[in-house]
C-alpha cells in the first residue's frame, strides 16, 4: 500500500495532498513528488488515494443516479406514444337498434374498430344455445354473450381475435363467421370453434339505454 514513488514519477492524483493523514512536509512541483520531502503518502495500487471503498461507493451512486435520471427523461417520451387525450375522448357511442332487421348485420365503428350488430334469427339463437356444451375452446354460454331480454341482438367487435382481420358471415363451418386471413371459424354466438384464434369474438362493454338504443363503451 504505502509505496514510495520513484524519483520523478508522475502521480496522477495528487489528491492525497489534501488528506489529513498524508499532510506531511512534502513539496509538489510540476505534479511530481520530490523524494526527500515525501513522508509516506497513501497511494493505492490504482494510483488513487486511500479509502477505495468510499470512492467506489461514490462511483456506483453517481452511476445509479445517472441511470435513474436517464430513465426519468425517457419515460415521458415513451408515455407520449400512448393514446392521446383526444383519442381517448372518442370512447363511447350510441346506436339505434331499429336500424337492424331480423337476419341482418350492421357494421358500426367504435374507437376506430368495426363492431358487428347482428339481429339473429330464431334458428341462429337455437343453434348457438344448442352448442353451449359442445366442448368450446373458449367456454362461454350464449346467454353470457347477449343482454337479458335482448337475446336476438349480438354485439361483437368485428376483429378476429387471431390477428385482427374482419371475419365474414355465413361462410364458416358453424353457421357464423369465418376469417379469411388464417381460417378461424366462429359460430352464431361469435364463439371460436376451429382455427388459430385463441378466444371468442369480443363482446364490448355496452348497455341498453332504452329499449331500442345501445351505448357502447
Amino acid at each position, binding site marked *: 500500500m504505502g509505496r514510495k514513488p520513484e524519483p520523478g514519477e508522475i502521480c496522477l492524483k495528487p489528491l492525497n495532498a489534501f488528506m489529513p493523514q498524508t499532510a506531511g512536509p512534502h513539496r509538489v512541483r510540476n505534479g511530481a513528488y520530490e523524494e526527500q520531502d515525501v513522508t509516506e503518502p497513501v497511494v493505492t495500487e490504482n494510483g488513487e488515494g486511500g479509502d477505495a471503498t468510499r470512492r467506489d461507493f461514490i462511483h456506483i451512486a453517481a452511476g445509479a443516479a445517472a441511470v435513474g435520471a436517464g430513465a426519468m427523461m425517457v419515460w415521458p417520451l415513451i408515455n407520449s406514444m400512448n393514446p392521446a387525450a383526444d383519442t381517448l375522448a372518442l370512447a363511447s357511442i350510441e346506436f339505434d337498434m331499429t336500424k337492424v332487421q331480423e337476419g341482418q348485420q350492421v357494421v358500426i365503428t367504435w374507437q376506430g374498430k*368495426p363492431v358487428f350488430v347482428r339481429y339473429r334469427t330464431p334458428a341462429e339463437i337455437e343453434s348457438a344455445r344448442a352448442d353451449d356444451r359442445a366442448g368450446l375452446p373458449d367456454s362461454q354460454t350464449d346467454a353470457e354473450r347477449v343482454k337479458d331480454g335482448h337475446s336476438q341482438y349480438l354485439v361483437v367487435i368485428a376483429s378476429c381475435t387471431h390477428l385482427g*382481420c374482419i371475419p365474414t358471415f355465413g361462410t364458416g363451418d358453424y353457421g357464423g363467421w369465418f376469417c379469411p386471413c388464417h381460417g378461424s371459424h366462429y359460430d352464431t354466438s361469435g364463439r371460436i370453434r376451429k382455427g*388459430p384464434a385463441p378466444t371468442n369474438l369480443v363482446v364490448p362493454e355496452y348497455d341498453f339505454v332504452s329499449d331500442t338504443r345501445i351505448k357502447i363503451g
Partner: protein
Amino acid sequence: MSDHESTYVPKTGIEKWLDTRLPIVRFGADYMSLPTPRNLNYWYTFGAILTLCLVIQIATGVILAMHYVPSTEMAFASVERIMRDVNGGDIIRYTHANGASMFFIAVYLHMLRGLYYGSYKAPREMIWIVGCLIFFLLIATAFLGYVLPWGQMSYWGAEVITNLVGAIPVIGEPILIWLRGGPSIDNATLNRFFSLHYLLPFVIAGCVVLHLWALHTSGQNNPVGILIPKDRLKKDTVPFHPYYTVKDGFAIILFLMLFSVFVFFMPNALGHADNSIPANPLVTPAAIVPEWYLLPFYAILRAIPDKFGGVVAMFGSIGVLFILPWLDTSKVRSMRYRPTMRTFFIIFVIVGLILGWCGAQLPDAPVIGNFKTFILIDGDLNSYLWLTRFATLYYFAFFLVIMPLVGLRETPRPIPATISEPVLSGAAAMTAAAPAAAEKKG
C-alpha cells in the same frame, strides 16, 4: 488483415496538413489497399451491392419524404400525387418500392453465401451477429415503409403485424395500444410509422459501420474457408483496389440491370393490386399477404395452430440465426469440404423457397391436384398447411439438430493449407489437414 499497415503517404501540402488533424484521406486509402483474399468469387460481391441498395433507398426515400404527407386523410392521395404530378415522381417511387425487393434479393444471397462458406464461424461471429441485426432492422424498416402508402394491404398488413405483439400474454394488450397510439390503427400509428421508417435506415447505416469494423478486425473469409497464414499474406491476398472494386463494380452493373428491368418494365410485378385501393378499416381484403420477401416467415407464423406459439416461431426463425455460430460444431468453415452438410444446405435453400411459396397460398388449399387425402389432426394432409409445417420443421431442424450433429459426425474432405494450393497443384496434392488445424492459425 487486421495488422494491415498504412502505406499512405500524403503528397500535397493540404493532405499533410489534413493528415495530422483528421486522417480521413488515410482512412480511405487504407481501406482501398486492404489485403483481400485473392479467391473471392462473385458471391462475395453482395456486400458492395447491399451498400449501394442502402444508398439508393436513403436517397430516394429522403426525396419521397419531401412530397409525402403522413396523415390518414392525405397519405394515399399524396402518394398518388407523387405518381402523377411530381416531376419524375413515379420513377423515384418505383425505384424506392422495387429497391426494397432488390435489397432483400441481395441480402438473402449475401446471407446464404455466409452460411455456405461458414463466414459466421470464429473469429467472425460478431460480423454475423451484427449482420443478423441489420437483417432484422431491414425487415422492420420494410414493413413500416409498406404501411405508408395507406392502401388496403398497408392497413391490414399493419393490423396483422401489430396484432402479433398482442399475442404476448398479459402485457401484450397494453403494449399493443402503446404501439398503435390508440385502440386501433389510425393517424397516430401512421405518423409514428413514418417517423420510424425515416429513422431506422440510419440505424442500419450505423450497424453497417460496425459490420465493416468487425469484418476488418477479423479479416474476410474466402471460399476455401481457411485463415490465411501470416507468411502467405503477400502471396494469397491482393489489394482491395483495383481488384475487388472492379469485380464489385461489374457485379453492381449486372445487378442494376435486373433492378432496371423491374423499375422500368414491370414496376408493379412484385406489388399487390389491393394496395391501389385506399385503406378501409371496415373491409378486410380477401387474402392478406405480405411482400414476397417476408412470405417464408409469414408461412411459419401460420403453421403453428396457437396464436402466441406462431409469433414465437416466427421471431424464433430469425432469432435462431443469431446463435448460429454456436450451433455449428464443425471446425471446417467452407461447405466445399463438407459434402454431407452441403446436401442439407441445398435442401435448406429449397425448403426456404417452399416456405415462401406456401406463405402466398391459402392454408386449406390442396397442394397436389384437387383431391382430399385424410385429415391429420386439424387439416388435410394434402394441404399447404401441412406442407408449411413440414417445411417449418426442417427449417428449425437444420439449425438446431442437423448443424450440431453433422458437424460432429461427418468426415470432411481434405482442406488445403493455403488458398493457392487447390489452384496450383490440383486436388490430388492437397494435404489432408486435420479439420481442427484451420482453427489454430491467425
